[in-house]
């Protein structure tokens, strides 16, 4: 997961602006562009879910239980066991998945960066404590840890997101700390320190911007992990609660229809797969575009 290089990018001075340069590299990776387009589409669908979805995601059509998918039947992807339109649920689920991804990444990135910066800047005892905590968390299977946290807070989509965020913090801490340590020995940091800049200023103004590249890549991958983990928790009954349309929960409910109603099981699974794949493709592209080592 963390194959991200720890080296900070050295932006070479060229006639291109950094953004143009980024796009130049990024767009050569066709997979990444496909991923980006898919994600853009998903964001669009999520934002306008109410307009796009043919039905309400929670309305139960009691005369249309477990309808198979059909062009003409009114339910494009069929209905589930209580007669809810699967397509509409998937569309509204997109909103939820993006929300979860956002929440998880914001939380874990924020806390992770903070702890990583502090550990990398101050070193010494603080660092030991933080890194030991990270070691402890990494020693436990993350799914198990997430399950325990959800069990404490009670199953709900927000609690599940928090638990996923908590278990993904260690990766960001490690990444940030490693980058910070590299940056700290660079001349410009030493220079600004001599110039009398305070720790906060050095951490956030000097060091952080220079270790952003690997963090951005990791955050993109964090998105896909969040969606997968949420699906796993939902599948184990610890994620979103009914009647919320969340993809993993939809799969969990559908599990008993594996043999009798394939569409109830297939579509949420495919949607999760494609979405995660899109984020991973984009993450790959970002890495290639941001990692100077691969640019040559």
């Amino acid at each position, binding site marked *: 997961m963390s194959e991200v290089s720890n080296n900070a990018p050295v932006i070479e001075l060229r006639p291109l602006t950094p953004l143009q340069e980024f796009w130049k590299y990024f767009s050569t990776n066709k997979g990444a562009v496909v991923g980006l387009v898919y994600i853009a589409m998903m964001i669009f669908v999520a934002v306008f879910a109410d307009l796009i979805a043919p039905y309400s995601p929670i309305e139960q059509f009691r005369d249309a239980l477990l309808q198979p998918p059909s062009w003409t039947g009114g339910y494009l992807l069929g209905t589930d066991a209580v007669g809810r339109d699967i397509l509409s649920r998937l569309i509204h689920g997109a909103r939820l998945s993006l929300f979860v991804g956002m929440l998880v990444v914001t939380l874990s990135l924020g806390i992770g960066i903070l702890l990583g910066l502090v550990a990398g800047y101050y070193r010494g005892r603080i660092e030991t404590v933080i890194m030991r*905590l990270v070691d402890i968390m990494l020693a436990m299977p993350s799914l198990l840890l997430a399950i325990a946290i959800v069990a404490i807070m009670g199953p709900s989509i927000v609690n599940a997101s928090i638990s996923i965020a908590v278990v993904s913090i260690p990766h960001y801490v490690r990444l940030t700390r490693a980058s910070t340590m590299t940056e700290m020995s660079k001349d410009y940091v030493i220079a600004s320190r001599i110039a009398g800049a305070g720790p906060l200023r050095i951490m956030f103004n000097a060091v952080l911007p220079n270790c952003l590249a690997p963090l951005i890549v990791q955050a993109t991958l964090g998105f*896909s992990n969040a969606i997968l983990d949420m*699906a796993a928790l939902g599948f184990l009954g610890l994620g979103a609660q009914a009647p919320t349309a969340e993809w993993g929960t939809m*799969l969990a409910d559908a599990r008993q229809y594996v043999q009798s109603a394939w569409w109830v099981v297939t579509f*949420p699974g495919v949607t999760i*797969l494609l979405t995660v*794949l899109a984020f991973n*493709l984009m993450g790959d592209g970002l890495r290639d575009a941001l990692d100077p080592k691969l640019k040559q």
Partner: protein
Amino acid sequence: MFQFILKRLGTVIPTFFGITLLTFTLIHMIPGDPIEIMAGERGISPERHAILSAELGLDQPIWKQYFSYVGGILQGDLGNSLVTKKPVVEEFFELFPATVELAFLAALFAICIGLPAGIIAAVKRGSIFDHTVMGVSLTGYSMPIFWWALLLMLVFSVNLGWTPVSGRIDVSLWIDHVTGFMLIDSLLSDEVGAFGSAIHHLILPSIVLGTIPLAVIARMTRSSMLEVLGEDYIRTARAKGLAPWRVIVIHALRNALIPVITVIGLQVGILLSGAILTETIFAWPGIGKWLIESIGRRDYPVVQGGILIIATLIILVNLLVDIIYGVVNPRIRHAK
């Protein structure tokens, strides 16, 4: 070297105690009451509830419970399951071989396919093969594995009938529990076809569990190979006119493998996480399923003890990887 190992061990001990504290705190913060679960719909009178909590030691103040827990750990006693009343350690090691066997085969599957695929993809960079391998492995990496398990089971077991649906071996065969590893026990038994049956039962679960590691290994091998292939000494070797396969296998591969081995080591934790879902779906009698069920039943000693043993094993594996790494690469040993 000795000092290096000592230093690493020095970090392991506080981590271990940190884990005991963290698991204990987490488990005891989980709401719910094992006694109520046992009583079920019938309910339980407050008097009887008090008697049972006293018997299970749940009425003690929390810090006392923690110290008696740690005291027990130091003597190798992780307490008894609240449900079956059997020692946690005994139950763990009864189920652990099944998980190890599954994880081992999954890793084997991942390595046997991931490594060559990654190497060939790197050597034939930009070819259709490369694109296919990368595409497939990224898809594998993005797979919700519980869904993948259901799909495979539906296709291969239910529709085609090629593989058994679940279990470790044909139940009509009598296999004694000797080592707990079905592949070994089946060879030790005098039942005909037992080993074949054990292998047959392992196929689908290992593929499911091995999918993500396979993807990671293939990608890592490819990028690591690409890096090495670009190094000067490889160009030199090529320039010297060595056979291409010789350059790849003898010179490049050896160096490219070091990061790959680290990645494989890191997969232990991922395999165990994946095992939770895989075991749940395939009814595999391992520790992942056991822990999930125990969380549901609020069987505190089992969850605590189980997580503790797993975490300890992961720490030890990481330590081992570190030490091997230090032996292979003296630079790391002397760093810091």
